[in-house]
């Protein structure tokens, strides 16, 4: 997976990559919808599923096996959701979205960006 087109478009591309969904213990679809709305509100462009374009990846896995990030190793900054864990720490399903958003915020700050997609 390569970097996105942040420089060209002015907004970071966050890609949501799902596991296959054979044994989900969380509502991946609902979480993805909530993430998309929040991320777009932060000025990010959101892409779902496979594809090369990504500045940041949200791996969204229904169970702890974590197939999405296990099967897609890469060097793009990312956060791993597996069942009710975020980056291997138990947070509970209701905290998944805010925990992921916090990591995206940290990433954007590290890239010298403010919310809303404008450069600082």
């Amino acid at each position, binding site marked *: 997976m390569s970097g996105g087109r942040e420089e060209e478009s002015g907004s970071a591309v966050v890609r949501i990559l799902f596991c296959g969904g054979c*044994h989900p213990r969380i509502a991946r679809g609902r979480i993805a919808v909530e993430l998309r709305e929040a991320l777009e509100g932060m000025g990010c462009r959101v892409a779902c599923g496979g594809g090369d374009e990504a500045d940041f990846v949200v791996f969204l896995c229904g169970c*702890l*096996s*974590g197939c999405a990030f296990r099967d897609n190793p890469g060097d793009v900054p990312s956060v791993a959701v597996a069942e009710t864990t975020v980056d291997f720490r138990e947070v509970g399903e209701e905290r998944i979205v805010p925990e992921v958003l916090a990591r995206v915020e940290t990433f954007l700050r590290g890239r010298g960006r403010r919310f809303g997609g404008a450069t600082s």
Partner: protein
Amino acid sequence: MPLMTPNAYEDSLRRMKFKVYLMGEEVENVVDHPIIRPSMNSVKMTYALAQDPEHEALMTATSSLTGGTINRFCHLHQSTGDLVKKVKMQRLMGQRTAACFQRCVGMDAVNAVDSVTFEMDAKLGTDYHRRFRNFMLRMQEEDWTVDGAMTDVKGDRGLGPSKQADPDLFCRVVERRKEGIVVRGCKAHQTGALNSHWILVMPTLTMTREDADFALSFAAPADAEGIVYIYGRQSCDTRKLEGGRFDMGNREFGGHEAMMIFDDLFVPWENVFLCGEYEFSGALVERFAAYHRQSYGGCKVGVGDVLIGAAALAADYNGAARASHVKDKLIEMTHLNETLYSSGIACSAEGHRTASGNYLVDLLLANVCKQNVTRFPYEIARLAEDIAGGLMVTMPSEKDLGHPVAGRYIEKYLRGVPSVPTEHRMRILRLIENLTLGTAAVGYRTESMHGAGSPQAQRIMISRQGNLEHKKALAKRIAGIPV
């Protein structure tokens, strides 16, 4: 000394000062006692195979703490590949010993304590993970065998720890001092305790606030002052005192269990990893149990390989190998054995990383694995006895075979196919006897039932992990019912 030699391991045990009772006597020399020694040989094999280039890929690992080569039994699993290799190593060990080789329980304990102490420190600000990692470093550097100790004697099963008539029926802290804690209680069924350098104690079940003194995890030298062992009997164990060549079925290897009594054992704080934080006791029990239920998908399969081989040889020696029903029984035994292996591998391949960085098996599949283990070895054993025939339990002793008069009759009348010596036929039948109802049946049968938790414990976990609501939603979607 990242990898101890087998002889160095034996010598290290000789230097230890265990307080042990066996058959009404205190044992002075644990290593050479004829009833205990075969179990030491099994653990010794974990050291021997680690030195063997033919097996080092399974028996050794790269330490995540030091980067050095260590015995896999001392390893914190760093990938699902490590979890898979663990199961394969256990199968190999079962094949080479046809017995319980005892060292798994410590490996499973350290992996459970590692992640739970990390999470406990993150939430409560305690200092347990640093202490535990120091212990792990010493374990890896010294190549210790560690006995994971979980099962309390539990008294009245209808009552919790703090409600027992005798509060010592669950291990507990009886005194907290500036330098450490004093522990009293008894762990039952302690596999390999007398072949271990250290013990790693864990709580026996999920504790509540009122049971906080029983929420306890610590490490101690296995021969520490204040620990007393009473050795467990095994079916046919006194055959090992007869000095024979093959009546014990497996002369070289075995397993052992013992009661482990803490008679006001003092433990310095540096070796305490849980003390009163009852809310983390459940996670510790659950993770240890899951690792150990995975283990059975390897070790029992290896022993099963030997039993299937023995049954096939018995059929050969009886002249029955070509009978279709015998072939079918061997197929069934193999099918059952490989099904156990499949779930051992599956729960490993579907494992995941924990917050501390080590890897944990898939809980549902590990419990399915162990649930199968409570059943399939019994059926494999039944089929082995079926193929072996009744002579397995009626034939005379090896001393009669060696008798100048009786031996001639035995030689003549107990021969099967002409090309196989009578003694060989007797040896293989004794091995089947050993595995199905002798000393090794402790490990292959009843331990398969109750070790790593009795069947109902797995069913509770399967119920919790089964994700029934997801299955209902699937059915609704197919049936056209709004989800």
